[in-house]
């Protein structure tokens, strides 16, 4: 049987027994997606890889505690929590987010995100990378991971209003990038 066709239960059982090849299979199945998550919480690729590594170490050490449900969701949760813990250690960068808010205020938000479908994912990721770290975290948690502002405020230790404003400004910043790119291409 090919490893790619292993069910999640089989993969989990093998990982729990310490089978290194199965652990690698587990890692390979989720690593690229989780790397994208980490990239959205960090500023450099190296930093993202560090967080990915720490996250998978936690996954393998705590794999006994998995109690069912979506395996990818469980792994993603661990990765997000790890990134947020890393975030908390660098709270100074969150404060820095406020400094660019005035710059974003001058942009009028279009109101719909239809432009997102016209942009390549890779390009969108590059634009997200240019966001300040705080706005990037709020945008990732709110717009992509699906957390509400209450959860975001608790996770990042910020006010809900800050979360709302940061998310809005992040969208504006991305739209601005889109407009700038479109104008440049025209």
């Amino acid at each position, binding site marked *: 049987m090919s490893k790619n066709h292993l069910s999640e239960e089989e993969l989990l059982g093998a990982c729990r027994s*310490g089978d*290194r090849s199965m*652990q*690698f299979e587990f*890692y390979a199945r989720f*690593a*690229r*997606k989780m*790397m*994208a998550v980490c*990239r*959205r919480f960090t500023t450099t690729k190296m930093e*993202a*890889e560090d967080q*990915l*590594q720490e996250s*998978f*170490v936690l996954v*393998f*050490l705590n794999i006994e505690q998995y109690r069912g449900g979506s395996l990818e969701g469980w792994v993603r949760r661990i990765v997000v929590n790890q990134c947020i813990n890393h975030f908390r250690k660098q709270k100074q960068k969150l404060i820095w987010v406020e400094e660019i808010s005035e710059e974003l205020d001058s942009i009028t938000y279009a109101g*719909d*995100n*239809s432009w*997102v*479908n016209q*942009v390549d*994912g890779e390009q*969108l*990721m590059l634009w*997200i990378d240019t966001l300040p770290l705080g706005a990037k975290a709020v*945008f990732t948690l*709110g*717009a*992509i*991971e*699906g957390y509400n502002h209450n959860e975001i405020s608790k996770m990042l230790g910020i006010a809900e209003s800050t979360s709302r404003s940061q*998310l809005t400004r992040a*969208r504006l910043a991305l739209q601005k990038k889109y407009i700038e790119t479109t104008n440049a291409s025209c």
Partner: protein
Amino acid sequence: MENENNQNEEFKNKLFDFEEPVSDLVWEGITGKIDKPNKRRKWVIWWLPALCLFLVGSGLVFHKYVGFEPNASESGSDQIQVQSVEKQKRQAIEKPVASAKTKDLTVSESQEIIRISADKASNRKEPPNENKKPDQAPSEKSGVNSKSNGNRSVAQASILPQILSDVTSFNKEGISENKRKGSGRTEPVSGRNFKIRTQQNGVLSRRNATGSLESKDSKSGETNEMAANALQPESNKIAFNEKSENLEAKSKLVSETPNETQAPQAPTFGSKPIDYLPIKMAVLETGYIGKSIPVVLNLIPLETAPAPTGPIKEKPKDRFARKWHFGASASALGAVQQVVVVRNVGEWNAASLPVLSNIKNSLVFEGSIFASCSLTSRFALGANAGLSTWKETVNFQTLSGTKSQFTLEPIPSPTIETSFQGNPINDQRFTQSRTTRYTSFWFQPKLAFKLAKNWPVWLKPGYQIMVFNVQTASWASGINGPTVELSFRKRHLELGFKCLFFRQRDQIRFVPQSKVNSFWLGTTVGWWF
């Protein structure tokens, strides 16, 4: 909110499953970090038992070859010193014996064996018996040493001087001398009747005047003509039936009996060494160390071993026993029981009052310095001097009486707290609660008995004398009472339980002349310098 969710949906669809390439280094880092706990676990699984086995094995080896000195002082440093001395002695014994396995003993080596073994043998109370029969079985003589501590090397060595002391040497007159260990005297034997005795397998052998070999069983006492005589090489036989003149002439060549200063030499007759049966001792040793069961066969040839010479030194007894120790201790004691005997006080007869409760709670903290002198390995004399401070709460409740009936004397203490509860008019119940802090200096002479020689638990009865009372600012204000301590001492650290009996005047004096009998139990932690 719904609008915001719709706005986020586009981003989510676009980026939720987005994938990014990952460096191979990440997986290497993950495996490295996962392996660390596993490696630690493996280390624990394999090395910890191995370490335990090693320690157990070392302990067994230590116990087997070094042993514990039951008469050593309880102090750790003393034990180390005593054991090191004993170890040196044992090594000194074992080294020559071990070397004897592979080569013949030299004169000096043999002498060293005998000298040290004689030191060991000097533990015997009775002096060397000069009138002991020469045919007495050596096994009986060596019984003291052989059973001493299971050290077979010592037992082996202790047999040697008794065997070898019986080797006959010759004087100038051709008269053999049978020199005994320790006696320092020689027993002249007729020239024609001198006999050379040796031992093999518990059978004493000797040559008679005619050169024939006799053997005597040490148990049965039967003497048999040795048929083995014929087996001796002809050239090695001594012509004992020669004429006496020739014997005298030849005897001049024989080395003189070694004195105390001269190195002993192997007995010879003319240019030939005296022919006697070789003495061989075979000892089979076995044991259990770890998983291995070593078996050692010791063969000890003793053909050239001479008689012992030199004075036998007495082993110093209790050399380390008399020693001063100084230490410090801290203890916490809690009150277990409190009884107040109330006497008549003026117009108020407290004894006539029905007492509902009379409980004293207190916790005493003591710090002390102590000194003791170990007179023997089991007996010590010492004294403590310390400072005690405690806070005591007394709850006294009666069913009847009034507040005015209590005589409240002022107590010179800054921390006194008194509270009165209850309403004596309504329920005729009077409750007094008082908390007082005490501080006192005390002195405590002690005796100390070690319960068993090789069991480091000491019983220390003493008597605590209050030498200064802070509350009343007076010297020698009272005798606190007897104390009993049970302590365990390991090297410098002492842990113990302390029990203190009080019988003193109650310092609270809400009832004058009351006596307090109290019983305290606490723990002590001491450090010996």
